[in-house]
């Protein structure tokens, strides 16, 4: 017997990425998993090299980043890669989630895979937020101030919690230091969660575009899906190279090249683009505490999909109205992204409120009503 199948550790690898049977009909939309793993690997690798030169100190952080950009050999390439892969990480994770939404990958028996995925999303956002603080430009400081201050909305102990996180009565050096420490820690937690995600997926295997069982038609991971994954990985590297080498600051904010100044508030404080939809939801609710609850709720509401999607058919392939509802949800998400980048004035506030209402209604009303209607119609049709 081959060593690959005999040795304990190699056998584990073999069962996950070599012999693992995959549905023959999964499309390229199933490639985002391997792309996300590539992103995590790239981020950990570039991050380790950046940490060798970065100084987590309020007076030196910005200068140390500029030192990386100007004096460290190819430091600019490492830092631009790290900053832009963060953006691609979110593009891919949103696409991965959208794929799951469209094809009903959250439905039984993959509920736990989906739940772990939502936790991964939340941890990823926390990691990205912590990382954005580290270069310590104006947006780093003020974005972090706004987000950490949100927790003060929690009744009774909110202010104490914020001071605990800050390690002082205001934003200070200890805060930046612990943010660096946590930013280094969380990616490894992410890696562990990703492995848990994989182990749970492995129990029942991947979903597929038809939404029906695929046990009769599967092919091994290697060579079919490893080479298929490789296509999109190289394509990703190509697009990433174009961004890193030709438009490195496309997805960043120019204010973050101004050193952090606690005495001067920027004209508008916006988070990184991938957090904008949730920032829009936060600002759409006039009450601070309810806004914070809505923001975290907008992520956690993904968890109730296995309950609210009552349709007997998995996925949208054979559900035309669910397809329409899905694309409405995608458009709503894009509108929220746009609203999050605008000043909170008329008409943006009103558009944001409507989009926020639609976001929650989609999970709580549209999806269950569509499922109920379809089930009823099918019962009538089959007498």
């Amino acid at each position, binding site marked *: 017997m081959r060593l690959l199948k005999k040795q304990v550790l190699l056998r584990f690898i073999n069962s996950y990425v070599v012999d693992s049977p995959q549905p*023959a009909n999964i*499309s*390229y*939309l199933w490639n985002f998993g391997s792309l996300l793993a590539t992103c995590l690997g790239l981020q950990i690798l570039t991050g380790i090299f950046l940490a060798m030169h970065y100084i987590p100190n309020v007076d030196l952080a910005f200068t140390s980043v*500029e030192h990386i*950009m*100007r004096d460290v050999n190819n430091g*600019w*390439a490492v830092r631009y890669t790290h900053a832009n892969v963060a953006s691609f990480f979110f593009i891919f994770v949103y696409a991965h989630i959208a794929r799951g939404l*469209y094809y009903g990958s959250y439905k039984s028996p993959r509920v736990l895979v989906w739940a772990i995925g939502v936790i991964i999303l939340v941890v990823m956002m926390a990691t990205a937020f912590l990382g954005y603080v580290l270069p310590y430009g104006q947006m780093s400081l003020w974005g972090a101030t706004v987000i950490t201050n949100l927790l003060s909305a929690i009744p009774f102990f909110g202010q104490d919690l914020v001071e605990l996180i800050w390690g002082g009565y205001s934003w200070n050096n200890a805060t930046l230091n612990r943010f660096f420490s946590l930013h280094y820690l969380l990616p490894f937690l992410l890696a562990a969660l990703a492995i848990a995600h994989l182990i749970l997926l492995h129990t029942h295997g991947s979903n597929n*575009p*038809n939404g029906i069982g695929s046990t009769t038609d599967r*092919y091994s991971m290697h*060579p*079919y899906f490893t*080479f*298929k994954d*490789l*296509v999109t990985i*190289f*394509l990703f*590297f*190509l697009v990433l*190279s*174009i961004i*890193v*080498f*030709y438009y*490195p*600051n496309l997805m960043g904010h*120019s*204010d973050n*090249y*101004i050193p952090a100044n606690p005495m001067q508030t920027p*004209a508008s404080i916006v988070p990184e683009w991938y957090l904008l939809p949730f920032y829009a939801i936060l600002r759409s609710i006039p009450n601070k505490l309810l806004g914070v609850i809505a923001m975290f709720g907008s992520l956690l509401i993904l968890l109730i999909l296995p309950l609210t999607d009552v349709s007997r058919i998995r996925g949208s*392939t*054979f559900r035309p109205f669910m397809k329409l509802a899905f694309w409405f949800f995608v458009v709503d998400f894009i509108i929220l992204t746009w609203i999050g980048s*605008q*000043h909170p*004035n*008329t*008409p*943006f506030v009103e558009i944001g409120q409507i989009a926020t209402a639609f976001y929650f209604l989609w999970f709580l009303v549209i999806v269950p009503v569509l499922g109920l209607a379809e089930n009823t119609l*099918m019962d009538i*049709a*089959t*007498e």
Partner: protein
Amino acid sequence: MLSRLPAGALKNVSSTLGARSTVAANVARNGLRVRHASTKSSASSAFESFLNSRATLAGATVAAVGSVAWYAHLYGSLPFIGEVHANSPAEEGLHSPSYPWSHKGLLDTFDHASIRRGYQVYREVCAACHSLDRIAWRNMVGVSHTADEAKAMAEEVEYEDGPNDQGEMFQRPGKLADYMPPPYPNEEAARAGNGGALPPDLSLIVKARHGGPDYIYALLTGYCDPPAGFEIRDGMNYNPYFPGNAISMARVLFDGLVEYDDGTPATTSQMAKDVVTFLNWASEPEHDERKKIGLKAVILFSALTAISLYVKRHKWSYIKSRKIVYTPPTDLKKH
């Protein structure tokens, strides 16, 4: 892309789901037949097939999207919603035009003669108020000046060093490793010298402003008289490109202000172009190398993408060309 199943898939699924009774399948089949019949019996069948054709669909979509794009191109705003502005142009500043920078293209490098002229403008004009903290003399070697020139320029500046054996600080001429001297010893001195306003450090100015080099150029050359009715405070200057339109910095570039070594006529726009090119280099000293490596990366990864596509097709060829045969059970009663 989302599913390669034919239109009849829904019908097939409904027949599988309703396997217990053939009612659903019959309904679906009848429905299809009815639609075909109505299409054929129509008097204006040519018109209907025109309406139902994919080319018509694509044409109508292109016309709709294209007219929106054309409108946006002509008038600079989207139709119907273009008038909605939560932020006035005065608040955000006029959007700067797009200038044809010599380093703008994907394969373009900086115009290094322009960087050299731009340094002269910075040194003779901007450096009176603005620091350039992150640029050392050594950075200019091989970019705009020779090593000897840079050394000579550094030596003209006295730097404090020490302490020496006696524990005293002393002045010495600059070295290549020294950074550009700031015009003011600290922020308070800079504010005191500029009516309370702080002239920003210019090392990252091109990356730190929305619009980058276009914005800096537009700002430097955009000074004009305020429009009627625009109140401007004493000591402030009107500039349509600056957010809020009132800027502490006065117009500094006038024709013939500097005399270029290479004989280029020093017009306002020439000096603005040169100094912005210099500042762009100061913000992105890796720029030329970055684009060169970028092309190498594009060559490498586009080749790898192409090869991986071929390999994928090769590996999948027998799956893609397989034949699936369904033999229906001959004896339905046993089934």
